[in-house]
C-alpha cells in the first residue's frame, strides 16, 4: 500500500438546483481498470447545534438574524463560524422563515435579465435582510463541499484532485462561465464541466460496465430525461461506430425548462388546499408549508405502493397540544393521477407544443418558470424540433415519414422519476408516439440511482478522461451568433435590421478555436462595445462566418448581450482599432470569445456576464 505517488482521486460534484452530491474514486491504480467509487457523506448542520452526515447537501442558504442563533451552535467540524448557513439547517429554518431563505440560486445563474453577481437573494425579503448574489450562493455551496472533503481527506487536498462539476445541458455560455468562476473562487480553477444528462449516461455505463455493450447498439438514439427538483433537462445521444468501436455523440440538448418535482408537490398542496376550503377550513401560511411537506410524503407513498388508494395527510398544530389542533385530510390516488400524472405528463400527440400564455397567478417574482406544466408537451416539442439532429451521422437512419426524431432507448434521471407511475406514463406516451409512426418502442435503460447518478457519472468522467472506457463526444452545446446591424439607411421608428453572424458552430470540440479573420469590426478604444448574442440548438449546418439574414423565431434564441472593452494601454483613447472575432471552446467546457487586433494581434476578452449596470 506504500505507493510512492500521493493518492489521487477523481471527484464528481453535482451542483444541483435543490441538492448537491459529491462522489469520488481512487485513480492511483489506474492500470487495473478497476473503478471503485463512493458517494461522500457531507457533514452539515441539521438543526442549531447538531451536525449530521447526509449524502445530499440541500442547495439552500439561510441568512439568519444576528439574535436568532445562540453562540457556538453554528459550528461545523472544520470551522467554528461558517460564513453562511448551508444545507439541511437552511432548509429547516427557512421553512419557518421563508423571507431569509436563499433557494434556486442555480436557476438564477441562467437568467438572462439579471446580473448574477448582484446581491438579490432572497428576493422579496425585507430591506434589512442581508442579500447575496446567485454567484455567491454557488461559491458557498462549493466552499462547503470543499471543506467537507478537506475534513475527510486531510492528506489529499481537493485542489490536487481531478474535479468535474456538472451543469445542465441547457446552461448558456454565461452560466457555464459563472460556474467555472465560482469554482475558481474556492481554489478549484482546474475543475472541468460536464453536462448532467451526459453524466447520467456515464453513470449508467459505469454501473453496467460488464454488459452495457449488449444493451446499446450502433444506430441507437438515447433520450436522456432528467427531471430534478427544479428543472427538466433533455438530451439526445446517438450511438455510432468508428473503427469497430462504439461511439457516443451528444447530438441535441433541450431548452432550460424550470419545471420539476417541487412544482409537483406544490400542485398537490394547492389541490388539497382547495379541497379543504370547500369544507370551510381555511389554511394559514404555515399550515400550507406543512401541507406541502405532507403532500410530498403522501405522494411518494401513493406512487410507489399501488395497493394504497388513500394516503392520510395530517397537519399538526404548532403549539405543544398535538391532538387538539391537528387538521386531518387525505390525498387520494385519483387526485394524484389527475394532478401529477395527467397534469404534468398528459397524454398528448407527438405534434403537441407547450402552451404559452400571459403570465398570471402565483409565481416567485423573477425566475422564468415554465408556463406549461405539461412535461410531455415540452418533450414532444423537443423531439420534433430535433428531428434532424442526427442528419450528419451515417450510422443513424431515420424513417422517411417521421415527424420527430425517434429515440430507441430512454435513460431516466432525477428523483421525480423514481415514482413508477410517472416513469411508466412517460414511457407509454413516448412509445405511443413511436407506434403511431410504426417505429419500435424505446427501451428503458435501467440500473441508475436517480438521485446520485449525476455525481457518480461526473466522477466516472474523470476516469474516462484518463483514457479509460468510452467517451461521449459533446462539444459546444449550440451554435452561437453575434448580431450585426446591416448597413442600410435608417428609418425612424423601425429598428435597424440585424444579421446573425455565426462565430462558433454546433459541436465545436473542446480545446479548439476558430477565427473569423475576414469579418472586420472597428472598435473604439476605451469605449465598451456590446453585441447582441444568439444561440441555436437546431442549426447544425452553419459554419463560422455564416451570415443569417432571416431566421425563424424558434431557430435562434437571444441570450444576454456580450461586451468588450478595449483598454487604453499604449493607445490613444478614441482610436479605432480593426479587430476580428475569435471563438474557442476550452478544455474546461466553456466558450471563450475574443476580439483580436488585425494590426498587432492583441487580444481582448469578450465578457458574457455583462448584465450588471443595466
Amino acid at each position, binding site marked *: 500500500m506504500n505507493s510512492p505517488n500521493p493518492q489521487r482521486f477523481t471527484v464528481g460534484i453535482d451542483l444541483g438546483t435543490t441538492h448537491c452530491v459529491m462522489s469520488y474514486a481512487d485513480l492511483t491504480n489506474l492500470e487495473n481498470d478497476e473503478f471503485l467509487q463512493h458517494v461522500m457523506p457531507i457533514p452539515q448542520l441539521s438543526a442549531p447545534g447538531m451536525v449530521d*452526515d447526509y449524502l445530499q447537501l440541500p442547495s439552500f442558504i439561510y441568512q439568519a438574524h444576528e439574535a436568532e442563533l445562540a453562540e457556538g451552535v453554528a459550528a461545523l467540524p472544520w470551522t467554528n463560524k461558517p460564513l453562511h448557513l448551508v444545507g439541511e439547517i437552511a432548509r429547516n429554518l427557512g421553512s419557518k422563515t421563508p423571507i431569509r431563505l436563499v433557494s434556486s440560486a442555480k436557476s438564477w445563474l441562467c437568467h438572462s435579465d439579471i446580473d448574477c453577481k448582484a446581491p438579490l437573494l432572497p428576493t422579496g425579503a425585507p430591506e434589512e435582510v442581508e442579500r447575496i448574489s446567485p454567484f455567491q450562493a454557488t461559491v458557498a455551496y462549493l466552499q462547503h463541499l470543499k471543506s467537507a472533503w478537506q475534513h475527510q481527506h486531510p492528506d489529499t487536498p481537493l485542489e490536487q484532485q481531478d474535479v468535474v462539476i456538472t451543469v445542465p445541458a441547457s446552461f448558456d455560455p454565461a452560466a457555464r462561465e459563472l460556474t467555472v468562476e465560482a469554482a475558481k473562487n474556492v481554489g478549484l480553477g482546474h475543475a472541468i464541466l460536464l453536462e448532467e444528462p451526459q453524466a447520467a449516461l456515464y453513470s449508467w455505463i459505469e454501473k453496467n460496465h460488464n454488459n452495457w455493450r449488449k444493451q446499446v447498439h450502433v444506430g441507437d438514439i438515447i433520450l436522456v430525461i432528467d427531471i430534478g427538483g427544479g428543472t427538466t433537462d433533455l438530451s439526445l445521444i446517438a450511438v455510432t461506430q468508428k473503427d469497430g468501436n462504439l461511439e457516443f455523440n451528444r447530438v441535441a440538448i433541450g431548452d432550460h425548462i424550470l419545471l420539476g418535482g417541487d412544482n409537483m408537490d406544490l400542485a398537490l398542496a394547492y389541490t388539497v388546499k382547495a379541497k379543504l376550503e370547500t369544507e370551510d377550513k381555511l389554511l394559514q401560511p404555515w399550515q400550507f408549508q406543512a401541507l406541502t411537506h405532507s403532500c410530498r410524503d403522501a405522494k411518494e407513498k401513493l406512487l410507489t405502493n399501488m395497493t394504497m388508494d388513500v394516503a392520510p395527510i395530517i397537519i399538526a398544530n404548532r403549539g*405543544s397540544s*398535538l391532538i*387538539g389542533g*391537528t387538521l386531518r385530510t387525505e390525498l387520494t390516488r385519483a387526485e394524484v393521477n389527475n394532478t401529477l400524472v395527467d397534469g404534468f405528463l398528459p397524454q398528448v400527440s407527438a405534434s403537441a407544443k407547450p402552451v404559452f400564455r400571459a403570465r398570471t397567478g402565483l409565481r416567485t417574482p423573477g425566475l422564468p418558470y415554465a408556463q406549461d406544466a405539461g412535461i410531455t408537451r415540452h418533450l414532444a416539442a423537443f423531439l420534433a424540433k430535433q428531428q434532424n439532429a442526427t442528419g450528419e451521422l451515417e450510422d443513424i437512419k431515420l424513417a422517411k415519414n417521421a415527424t420527430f426524431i425517434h429515440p430507441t432507448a430512454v435513460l431516466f434521471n432525477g428523483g421525480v422519476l423514481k415514482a413508477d407511475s410517472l416513469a411508466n406514463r412517460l414511457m407509454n406516451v413516448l412509445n405511443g408516439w413511436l407506434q403511431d409512426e410504426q417505429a419500435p418502442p424505446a427501451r428503458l435503460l435501467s440500473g441508475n440511482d436517480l438521485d446520485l447518478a449525476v455525481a457518480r457519472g461526473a466522477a466516472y468522467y474523470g476516469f474516462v478522461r484518463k483514457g479509460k472506457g468510452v467517451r461521449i463526444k459533446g462539444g459546444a452545446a449550440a451554435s452561437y451568433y453575434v448580431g450585426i446591424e446591416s448597413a442600410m439607411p435608417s428609418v425612424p421608428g423601425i429598428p435597424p435590421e440585424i444579421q446573425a453572424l455565426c462565430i462558433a458552430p454546433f459541436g465545436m470540440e473542446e480545446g479548439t478555436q476558430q477565427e473569423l479573420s475576414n469579418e472586420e469590426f472597428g472598435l473604439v478604444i476605451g469605449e465598451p462595445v456590446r453585441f447582441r448574442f444568439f444561440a441555436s440548438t437546431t442549426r447544425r449546418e452553419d459554419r463560422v462566418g455564416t451570415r443569417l439574414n432571416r431566421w425563424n423565431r424558434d431557430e435562434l434564441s437571444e441570450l444576454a448581450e456580450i461586451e468588450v472593452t478595449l483598454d487604453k494601454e499604449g493607445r490613444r483613447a478614441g482610436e479605432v482599432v480593426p479587430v476580428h472575432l475569435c471563438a474557442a471552446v476550452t478544455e474546461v467546457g466553456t466558450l471563450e470569445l475574443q476580439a483580436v487586433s488585425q494590426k498587432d494581434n492583441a487580444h481582448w476578452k469578450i465578457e458574457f456576464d455583462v448584465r450588471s449596470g443595466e
Partner: protein
Amino acid sequence: MTYLESLMTTFAVDLSLRPTTFDLWHVCLAGTVVVLMAVLILLLLVMLLSRSRYKKEINTKTIQPIQPIEPVVKIVEKIIEVEKIVQAPIPEPVILKEYTPDAALQMLGLLQKEARFIDFLKEDITAYNDADIGAAARVVHEGCNKAVNEHFSLAPIRNEQEGSNITVPIGFDASAIRLTGNIVGIAPFTGSLIHKGWQVTEVRLPKLTQGHNPNIVAAAEIEL
C-alpha cells in the same frame, strides 16, 4: 492366676517399708508428678485468664450507656469496624456503567422534533376521541419511524419466521437470546421462536457543537 500369683510373690507390697535410696522407678514417678502439676497449673491459669477477659467485655457493655463519651469506648468501636473490613474481601467489586445523559437527551430532542413525541406523551388524551388521537398518532408514528431509521440501523436477531422451531446451540449468546418456559436439561435447546428480536447494527447520532444545550429538547417558538 499362676502368673498374677507369681507376680504378687515377686513384687509383694509391704506398706511398712520405706525407700532408703532413690532408684530409677521413683525418679520417674516424681518426674511424672511434677509434669502433671505443671499441666494442671497451666490449665488453671488459662481458664482464669479467659474468664477475666470475658468479664471485662461484659463490663464495658454495661458501662457504655453510662459513659458514652469515654474515649476508650470509641477505640473499641473502631476495633469492631476493622474486624468488619477484614471479613469482606470475598465478592468482586461491581462497576455499573453510567452514561452521560447527552445522547439520551439528544434522542428525546430528535423524537420531539420529528414526531412531536413529548407533546404527545404530555398531553392529556382522556378528553379526546379515538379519531383525534389516531390522527395525532400518525404524526408520532411516522416521525418516530423517520427519526429511528435515520439514526439507527436495525436488524432482527433471528431471521426465521416467528412461531417456527429453533435449535439454540451450545454456548449461545444469552444476552441476544432469552430462553423462557420449561428451561431444563443442557444445550442445545429446541423451542419455538416467539419474538425475532431487534439489534442495532449502526448508530448515526448527530454530533453536537460546543454551544448546544442538550437539555433543551424543544425550544420555545415565538412568531414575529
